[in-house]
């Protein structure tokens, strides 16, 4: 170990970012899509991911699909297959964990890995370890990743954005000034438009100018999160890797858009009912309960109308929530108006075990329902999600979320193997058919 290395990498943090991840998963599944402009998000009506071939034609995330068809009629538009994306995502984490257990699963297509101290174990430099991880990922997953290696998360993230796709950028601390000088503040992870504008008022345009400010000035001028960014830009770890993953939730939201929009109260209510059921499923999985419910309806012209409700006791049983929502639904729902989405949020979640009894004994009624839903969850584990659902969700369940071409489902669900069901499939990505 030379002195230089110690100075350049007091810590060695790697950021790994899947290139156009959802679209790349689609191409990995189906080789006939290689080299073509592929877009995912058909069911949402907007682009959720686009291959680099599509990006080169000017297609960006969030663009309406009607726009995509105009810009590029030959673009291949696919419905999202989150099941496959999740399988690929888990594989990404697993491959990185072959090298280090210190992995932060930052999002479905990104993770951080701490490689500090592993040079002896692998008899490789940090850059070589990173290259080995990249090689494994690309070989086994059949898609490319961009990576950044540096001493902190913020600098590593700057590295992975530096060259994309299929890039690998090392930012040793001794070279960091060059990189920061070329980086406008807004490109730094965690700095948004407002903060960038605020910094500019103080004459700061580049990340380097910000990093070079003295500590007293930074403490005086910006709030704590930005002070931490300043530390990270200077190579000092302020943001440790969160390797534990999510342990709980503050709130759970479920929102679904449906097409075509509907003015049918019963249909809209059943969409809401389905969201409530789904939110409760998630709450039960984490053993959480909520007494503060927010629900809303979204109209065709994107107006929201909602209501906040407080229950007498925290719950994760959908009946408890539906009872009050049904009561107040007519106050929100206006006949003759087209609705396109419903949503529900269970807020102020707390441990379901510690929920208090209420004065008038409605908790006792809930106790019985709790047993029922223990069985419902058991059935779902065995037969797949929504094996059993409430009658009030029936209409929503029956028709799926989207009619028409937005209702396209991923291939994976269309041609199952013998023994697979509509609700349960093998936990392994399929590459389609082969002759």
């Amino acid at each position, binding site marked *: 170990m030379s002195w230089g290395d110690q100075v350049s990498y007091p810590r060695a943090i790697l950021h790994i970012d899947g290139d156009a991840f959802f679209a790349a998963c689609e191409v990995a599944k189906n080789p006939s899509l*290689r080299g073509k402009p592929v877009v995912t998000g058909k069911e949402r009506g907007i682009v959720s991911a686009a291959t680099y071939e599509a990006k080169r034609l000017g297609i960006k995330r969030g663009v309406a699909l009607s726009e995509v068809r105009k810009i590029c009629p030959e673009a291949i538009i696919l419905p999202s297959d989150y099941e496959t994306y999740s399988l690929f995502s888990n594989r990404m984490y697993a491959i990185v964990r072959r090298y280090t257990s210190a992995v932060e699963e930052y999002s479905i297509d990104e993770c951080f890995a701490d490689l500090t101290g592993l040079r002896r174990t692998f008899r490789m430099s940090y850059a070589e370890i990173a290259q080995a991880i990249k090689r494994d990922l690309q070989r086994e997953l*059949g898609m490319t990743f961009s990576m950044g290696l540096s001493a902190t998360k913020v600098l590593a993230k700057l590295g992975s954005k530096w060259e994309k796709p299929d890039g690998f950028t090392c930012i040793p601390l001794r070279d960091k000034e060059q990189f920061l000088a070329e980086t406008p503040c807004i490109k730094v992870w965690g700095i948004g438009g407002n903060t960038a504008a605020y910094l500019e008022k103080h004459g700061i345009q580049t990340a380097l100018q910000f990093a070079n400010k003295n500590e007293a000035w930074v403490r005086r001028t910006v709030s704590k999160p930005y002070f931490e960014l300043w530390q990270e830009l200077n190579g000092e770890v302020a943001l440790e890797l969160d390797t534990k993953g999510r342990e709980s939730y503050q709130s759970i939201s479920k929102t679904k858009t449906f097409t075509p929009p509907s003015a049918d109260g019963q249909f809209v209510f059943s969409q809401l009912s389905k969201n409530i059921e789904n939110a409760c499923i998630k709450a039960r999985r984490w053993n959480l309960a909520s007494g503060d419910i927010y629900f809303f309806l979204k109209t065709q012209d994107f107006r929201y109308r909602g209501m906040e409700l407080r229950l007498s006791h925290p719950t994760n049983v959908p009946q408890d929530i539906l009872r009050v929502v049904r009561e107040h639904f007519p106050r929100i729902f206006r006949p003759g108006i087209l609705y396109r989405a419903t949503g529900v949020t269970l807020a102020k979640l707390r441990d379901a075990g510690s929920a208090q009894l209420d004065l008038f004994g409605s908790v006792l009624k809930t106790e019985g329902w709790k047993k029922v839903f223990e069985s419902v969850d058991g059935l779902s584990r065995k037969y797949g999600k929504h094996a059993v659902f409430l009658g009030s969700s029936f209409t929503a369940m029956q028709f799926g979320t989207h009619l028409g071409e937005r209702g396209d489902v991923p291939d994976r669900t269309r041609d199952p193997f013998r023994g697979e069901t509509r609700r349960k499939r093998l936990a*392994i990505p399929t590459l389609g058919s082969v002759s």
Partner: protein
Amino acid sequence: MDEYAKKIHQFYERHRRMPSFGELMRLWSYRTKSAVDYRVNKLIREGRIAKDKTGRLVPGNPEGTRVLGLIEAGFPSPAEEELLDVMSFDEYLTPNKESSYILKVKGDSMIEAGIHSGDMVIVERRAAYKPGQIVIASVDNEYTMKYLRKDKKGAHYLEAANKKYKSIYPRESFRVEAVVIAVVRKY
């Protein structure tokens, strides 16, 4: 254990020897040694104690080991350790989980290799592939499953396991994507 045997037991625990008749008289609060003898004989008949060749008392088991309790006969329940050396079907079929994929077979080009239409093949993406393996190759951006072969000049080609199909000598776009490691068929 009755009161009398218990007292002998306590004595034995404390002194690591059996009591004499005189000591038993005090222990049991008897007035005569014949009464002691009567009680001792009863305990001997019950097998709780015994006499050695010289007539001195010894614990019930001549070897001096203590019976700690009865053990139910039968097969013990399977211990954790016994199940350390077994694997699940997942591990068996996909030993390298992260690089494994499945495909559905269409057509009969590999019928002589025992791979039928509708079968599931499990494949692995690897760094290198060898002639003789059944591989998934993309030829003109379509997946095809064939034997990977090498001709005398050292060029790779793809061979079907069915005489009806000609071998494929790929020209431009030919890439081996994965190797078949298992075929699964459910009935």
